[in-house]
């Protein structure tokens, strides 16, 4: 019951935005809602980690994997709410966002979080599909919020491509249900992931294979696998930075979660994971290499972060194609990606608030004018590219160890990709932080102070670099492997 009661919190918070008109009060109520939901959902996740999976009625199920996703969503929700108080408040003061738009923002932010929470907490394929599409519908107005500089174009591409992808995935879900009905399940039960897993051995393997193809292409569009990714850099770079953090940091993971839930049924039906692993490894490798080369010539730092998400989703997919060790690495990488990417988008928001530009070429000498944000960017990017002891270092090491055993050629290709990425990223980063401003250029005033956003980023970076040490230890690896067992067929 605590789970369902906690899911009501974002709904109430959204309704609150209809009533409340004061921008500060809206910000405070958003923070309060995220905190209350975190208390409830944190208790649910803690109970699952301590005692095992929890069922609420026929439609809701929380296991260790779900609990992890709930924790990641909550971390980003609380962070985004805190960062929004400053970011949206300042944009409102500057006249960039009207009060009406601020209310739209605070009305949709909790609905977006609710849609993600429902996606991960439901065991019903129909509810999962509706909630996943709802994540697109609740964020499209946020992508279009500024109504200028390509925001409408980004929103159009985002809505059309993601809706099409999700529609194609519906065909896959229907085929899975068809296989369930063929195995003797009543139509209501044929949409239950639990029931499908129980009857997996009697599902028609051919139907299940076709279902997976549609699911992979459809949900893969939402995950941002190349070549279904074109909406991603546009949408993630045009929306307010706290929303960029949520879109990039956690929504991609949530979409991947949905795909992995369906994959578990497919693997059980086929009696092995080699067939689905091929899809993950192939599309993963393509995404890593494509994003690595695009990152070399980025001119916009928010787009650079967005393309980095494509590379990260590629890395996770690659790990998922490399057996049980790779799957454990994927769990680590999901955590590291959420922490690093949200911290960097929050920091990018600070840069944007200060300098009013997203163009790398227009930013010079940031280290002098904004040392706190610069330090956050520096540490965030170093963590993102896998510097020890970040979680991403641990996960990438795990991927390479798994790939070296299973597919050395693929491991080599990943190493090439991982070697190219830092070249592009560090070149752009150093250019922004350390290159000299032209003589006579005005320095932004006032000097930078420590803000709430910096506090959020500091906590996330501490978790990013501290967590890496944990995951390098045997208990840390075992913990990640125990979560991976919830969505894999390995014993």
């Amino acid at each position, binding site marked *: 019951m605590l789970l369902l009661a906690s899911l009501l919190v974002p709904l109430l918070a959204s309704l609150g935005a209809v009533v409340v008109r004061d921008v500060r009060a809206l910000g405070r109520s958003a923070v309060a809602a995220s905190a209350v939901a975190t208390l409830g959902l944190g208790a649910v996740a803690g109970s699952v980690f301590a005692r095992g999976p929890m069922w609420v009625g026929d439609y809701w199920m929380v296991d260790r994997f779900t609990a992890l996703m709930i924790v990641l969503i909550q971390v980003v929700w609380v962070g985004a709410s805190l960062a929004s108080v400053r970011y949206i408040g300042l944009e409102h003061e500057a006249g960039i966002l009207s009060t009406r738009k601020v209310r739209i923002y605070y009305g949709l932010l909790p609905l977006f979080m609710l849609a993600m929470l429902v996606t991960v907490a439901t065991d019903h394929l129909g509810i999962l599909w509706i909630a996943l599409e709802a994540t697109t519908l609740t964020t499209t107005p946020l992508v279009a919020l500024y109504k200028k500089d390509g925001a409408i174009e980004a929103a159009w591409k985002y809505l059309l491509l993601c809706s099409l992808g999700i529609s194609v995935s519906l065909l896959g879900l229907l085929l899975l249900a*068809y296989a369930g009905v063929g195995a003797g399940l009543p139509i209501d039960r044929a949409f239950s992931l639990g029931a499908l897993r129980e009857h997996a051995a009697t599902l028609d393997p051919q139907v299940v294979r076709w279902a997976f193809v549609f699911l992979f292409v459809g949900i893969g569009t939402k995950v941002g696998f190349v070549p279904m990714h074109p909406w991603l850099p546009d949408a993630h770079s045009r929306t307010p930075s706290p929303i960029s953090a949520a879109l990039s940091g956690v929504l991609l993971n949530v979409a991947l979660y949905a795909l992995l839930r369906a994959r578990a049924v497919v693997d059980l039906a086929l009696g092995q994971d080699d067939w689905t692993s091929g899809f993950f490894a192939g599309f993963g490798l393509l995404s890593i290499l494509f994003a690595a080369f695009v990152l070399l010539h980025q001119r916009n730092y928010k787009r650079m972060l967005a393309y980095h998400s494509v590379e990260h989703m590629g890395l996770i997919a690659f790990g998922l194609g490399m057996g049980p060790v790779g799957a454990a690495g994927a769990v680590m990488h999901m955590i590291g990606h959420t922490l690093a990417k949200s911290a960097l988008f929050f920091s990018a928001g600070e840069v944007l608030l200060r300098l009013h530009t997203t163009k790398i070429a227009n930013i010079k000498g940031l280290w002098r004018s904004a040392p706190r944000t610069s330090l956050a960017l520096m540490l965030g990017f170093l963590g993102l590219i896998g510097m020890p002891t970040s979680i991403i270092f641990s996960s990438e090491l795990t991927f390479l160890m798994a790939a070296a055993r299973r597919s050395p050629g693929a491991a080599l290709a990943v190493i090439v990709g991982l070697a190219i990425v830092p070249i592009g990223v560090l070149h752009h980063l150093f250019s922004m932080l350390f290159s000299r401003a032209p003589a006579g250029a005005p320095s932004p005033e006032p000097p930078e102070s420590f803000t709430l956003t910096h506090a959020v980023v500091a906590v996330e970076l501490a978790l990013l670099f501290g967590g890496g040490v944990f995951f390098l230890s045997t208990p840390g690896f075992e913990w990640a492997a125990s979560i991976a067992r919830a969505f894999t067929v390995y014993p």
Partner: protein
Amino acid sequence: MTTDMVSLEGVCAGCMLLTAFFSMGRKRLPTLLRHYALSSACLAGLIVTHAVRTSHPAEYAGAVATILVKVVVIPLAILATAHRCGESLRLKPITRPVVSYALAVAAVGGAYLMSRRLPLEIGPTSPVGHIIPLWSLVFVALALIFLGFLMLIIRRDLFSQIIGFLTVENGISAFAVVALGGVPFLMEMGIFAVIGGGVLLMAVLSQQVHSLYRSHDTAILSDLID
């Protein structure tokens, strides 16, 4: 009774396919919307024939919702948006009608090949108990999906892209009806809600695109290309 229903099922499926096919060469938005509305009405007919044959009266609600949303509300909403923008209702496909139809034939051919490869049971052995071969109904559903995608590719204006998306969605709905005999009621209503919400958002965005660029041509949406 059953034979009549089977005939009606075939007529509805065939009519859905034909209306979607002939919309490919149409240039005027109202004509395109009429084709879509007729195709959706045939989908409602398909749902009704299933409801009668399988004695599931709950499915009538799905048929009513289909007529209300897809035959009435969505076409009227799109037309109203177009009128509000004040632009010509004549659309600009990037291919000539002959080429469009040729590509549509190829899309339908692809759907035929795929439907023969899909390992779905045929005839009375299928889970839903069809009498006419299930693959032929699945072929219609897949053809609609392929035609919808084709429309998205060969049409550059926003309204055609919305109709292309809706055609894909009609194909998936048809697949749900013929392969599963429909989906649980609440799930069906949820799907209607998100599809309706999506189309509403698309209509709003198309208005905003027009107010920014004075055009509905998606070729102008190229600020964000790397």
